[in-house]
């Protein structure tokens, strides 16, 4: 039964916010104005509506004045909407029959010297809020169960760390690695800076822990081929050697790593006399030929250029580490590193950098406009401090190439419906505030899939992603605010799928129904951003508490 118009009783609470609002607006005038607005049956001014006293007045108003809508004109919903909403709920009014009007941050604070105009603006804002509130409808929070099982994609150091952390918390983990063995890029490394621990030892230790953990199901030589669903309820297909496994998953951690760039055509790269740092790792592991006496390393090969503008973060530390290891194996060897900026950020790296200088590694700065030239047996470089070209004898030239994104990053991105950046690395929800989350709830990110990371960073991120992923797992359910998209007019929907393509959260899908193809909103995945409703040509989709009618009512109220 739709509510009759005469049943709507709106209470308006005007907050003075001490002098933050009352010092600049004429509150008596606002009170008199509010009393005359349609459906408003009660108006009250409070020194602080958010204080215990103010909240009690709202509750009293709902009970004693039989208010069916509450409007608070005060500060910002960012800070106080949850408080006012829950207060309405406590007094027996559906929390979504509450509307907030910002007359402080967007009015009194920005018009401190224009009392009359500011008061008039506040009147407009209150009139609009009241008009909208009359059309508000009650909403119920949405709860959805979470399958208490995590999927970790990628068995490198980040993925293994994440899987172990989740397993240690008591959660079931499915770990998928496409290679035969765990370890990822670590398998190609010799020793790890700055501790010079053997990489193989770390791989063995972690592999043992993963394979021995009762909470981890490990699939190697396996690939995730299909992911359907949303947070808490993913249906995942994993192609393994023994056929396709279909597993229900609650959350996903993406740890697919990166790969080293191969510098074909650069600096006479041949894999023999001119090698990459990754190939250098193997040479060092196998033991350097004793006749290697002169080594020249060149930094930023294939990075920080037009094609690949980013700095790959970890190549300088790799070069410094390998330079020292070369000197350790062949103490007479001369090692020069030609660099643009030595990216030895932080405590440990800078310490290793200093240490390497003390151990005789030489550093020569080069300008990318005048790069070094690799010739047989020597490297020519312009030495800025000497002001002339210099020939460095070289038995071995080592090129520091960047870590680049996986070749199938695009496919993975489509599979999980998560974005990649212009360099093919996966794009987090927020550069600063959510570095381990995707915008889509339920999927998390760590290690070099996000951006090149060293061991310490990959471990920290692996733990961090596990922490983020464990929240829905330990709660066992997700509760979502009901301000989301709904298919308000099913008949109007043509199932065109435009909204599905535009939804940033993967919250829409087209389903076959008795009435034909219709869009379906996955309510727990929806964030209520409104892109779909704004896009829909048929006006079939609508956002709860932001319906066309409610917004039109606001606009009309403003224009009148």
């Amino acid at each position, binding site marked *: 039964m739709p509510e009759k118009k005469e049943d709507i009783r709106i209470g308006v609470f005007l907050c003075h*916010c*001490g*002098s*933050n609002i009352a010092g600049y607006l004429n509150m008596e005038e606002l009170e008199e104005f509010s009393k005359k607005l349609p459906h408003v049956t009660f108006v009250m001014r409070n*020194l*602080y509506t*958010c*204080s215990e006293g103010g909240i009690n007045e709202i509750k009293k108003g709902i009970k004693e004045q039989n208010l069916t809508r509450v409007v608070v004109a005060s500060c910002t919903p*960012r800070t106080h909407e*949850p*408080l006012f909403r829950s207060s309405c709920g406590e007094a027996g009014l559906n929390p979504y029959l509450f509307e907030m009007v910002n007359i402080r941050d967007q009015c009194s604070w920005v018009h401190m010297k224009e009392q009359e105009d500011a008061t008039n603006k506040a009147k407009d804002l209150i009139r609009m809020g009241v008009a909208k509130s009359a059309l508000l409808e009650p909403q119920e929070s949405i709860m959805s169960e979470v399958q208490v099982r995590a999927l970790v994609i990628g068995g490198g150091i980040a993925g293994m760390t994440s899987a172990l*952390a989740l397993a*240690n*918390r*008591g959660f079931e983990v499915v770990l998928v690695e496409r290679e035969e063995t765990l370890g990822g890029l670590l398998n190609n490394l010799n020793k*790890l800076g*700055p*501790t010079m*621990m053997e990489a193989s030892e*770390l791989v063995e230790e972690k592999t043992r822990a993963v394979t021995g953990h009762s909470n981890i199901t490990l699939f190697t030589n396996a690939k995730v081929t299909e992911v359907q669903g949303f947070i808490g309820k993913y249906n995942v297909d994993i192609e393994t050697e023994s056929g396709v496994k279909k597993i229900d998953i609650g959350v996903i951690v993406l740890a697919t790593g990166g790969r080293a760039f191969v510098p074909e055509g650069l600096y006479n790269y041949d894999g023999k006399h001119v090698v990459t740092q990754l190939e250098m790792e193997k040479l060092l592991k196998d033991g350097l030929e004793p006749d290697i006496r002169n080594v020249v390393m060149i930094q930023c090969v294939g990075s*920080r250029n037009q094609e690949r*503008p*980013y*700095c790959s*973060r970890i190549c300088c530390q790799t070069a410094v580490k390998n330079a020292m290891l070369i000197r350790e194996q062949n103490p007479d060897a001369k090692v020069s590193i030609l660099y643009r*900026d030595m*990216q*030895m*950020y*932080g*405590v*440990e*790296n*800078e*310490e290793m950098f*200093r240490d390497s200088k003390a151990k005789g590694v030489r550093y020569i*700065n080069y*300008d990318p406009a005048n790069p070094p030239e690799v010739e047989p047996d020597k490297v020519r470089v312009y030495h*800025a*401090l000497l*002001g002339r070209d210099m020939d460095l004898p070289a038995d071995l030239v080592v090129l520091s190439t960047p870590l680049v994104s996986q070749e199938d990053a695009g496919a993975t991105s489509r599979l999980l419906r998560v974005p990649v*950046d212009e360099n093919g*690395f996966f794009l987090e929800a927020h*550069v*600063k*505030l959510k*570095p*381990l989350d995707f915008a889509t709830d339920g999927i998390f990110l760590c290690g070099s899939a*996000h*951006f090149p990371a*060293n061991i*310490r960073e990959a*471990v*920290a*991120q692996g*733990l*961090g992603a*596990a*922490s983020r992923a*464990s929240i829905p797992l330990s709660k066992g359910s997700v509760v979502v605010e009901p301000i989301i998209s709904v298919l308000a007019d099913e008949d109007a929907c043509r199932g065109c799928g435009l909204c599905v393509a535009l939804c940033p959260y993967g919250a829409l899908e087209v389903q076959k129904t008795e009435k034909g193809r219709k869009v379906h909103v996955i309510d727990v995945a929806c964030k209520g951003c409104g892109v779909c409703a704004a896009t829909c040509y048929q006006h079939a989709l609508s956002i709860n508490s932001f319906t066309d009618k409610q917004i039109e009512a606001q606009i009309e109220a403003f224009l009148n």
Partner: protein
Amino acid sequence: MLDVGRHPNIELLAYSEVEKVEGEAGDFKVTIRRKARYVEDDKCTGCGACAEKCPTVVSDAFNEGLGERRAIYSYFAQGIPSTHTIDADHCRQLNGKKCGICAKTCQAEAINFDQEDRVLELDVAGIIIAAGYDVFDPSLIPEYRYREIANVVTAIEFERLLSASGPTGGHMDRPSDRAVEAEIAGLEKKAEKSQKALSKLEEKFNEPSDQFYKKYQAGEYKDDEDRKKWADKYAAHLAVTEPLEVLKKKAEAFTVAKRLAFIQCVGSRDFRFYPFCSGYCCMHSIKEAIISHEHEPETTSSIFGMDIRAVGKGFEEYKIRGGNNSNITYVRGRVAEITEGPDNNPVVIYEDTRERKVKRQEFDMVVLATACAPTKGIAELAKTLGVELDKYNFIKTSSLSPVDSTTPGIFVCGCAESPMDVPESVAQASSAAERAAEIAFQTDLEKEKAVA
């Protein structure tokens, strides 16, 4: 901050310190001192009416001493909790003088001058240290003349000058110019006062002061005591207004700082102080230069550094964009000295290593990218908690257990562990939470086992 403030599972104990820790991983007993604020936190709504009325002006630490606050204050406008605090060192009432204006102003009746420190004990499974860092004090570097040359500021001071809610409302006013303007304001106040006294006399004798003064100096009114007093007053008035006019004239030429120098590695990568690289300073200098250019499109910036370490995701691209679009020049070289030139302009002396030349360049303002120094109280805190520090006084960890301290059950994140930027700190905070949760969870398991 807001989320922390209103999360039902977080009990926020601000303005508090850990005094004692006993026990072990899974079962710590922590003693915490909640320092007296002299304001009841359950009553204070954070409205700020008290601070508006408080008569005692104190230098504002949040604005790096560039602005002022009152003796009752909140650290900064959006601070959580918004509960105000009385600064006991400066409050008149708490120092035995008559006042109590804040208590009279506060309609929430939250002021309590009798409040005392409270000590409480907590049982916790795990502990996370997130004590942060301090800004290195560059006055320790004599050749940069910080505090001697007004227009040499630290990056964090510059940050406050850039801020719309900062002491200059986001205008790049130079500290030397601000000092002159403060002097003008002071003299104007004096002049107004003496003018008032003169006006009375002018009325009495029905003559403008300057006319009278000319006659007086010419020898008239020799024996008139009243007029002698008038003359003295006028002379004193002139002693104020004449320099005032000079300063005003000078101030007419003031503009915002448009030629900026950023000096990297101030205190870091420096054997005298901190040999390590602070990691984030290259990026904040670039950011500050870009924002300055947004504020004032004529701004040009030179960033002096040995290496520009733009190593994070999107950082190198940001650096290049700064060069292309925001008039930033990156100069490879370590600045040797800063001196003061005409108009309070700092002069930077450095070797341009690319051109092999020693150069001098004049700027409107110089910004020092100061090192990430271990926070002052960290040694004491580490002792209380029983965790080891590394040789620089950061909390000791290892690269395979990057958030584990040397004591089980105690974890660390952010710059208390080592210098790092925001995204890394946020990621590490999650890592530390994960490790702590593992401990808390194990405890539950063991407890269950014990019951079974």
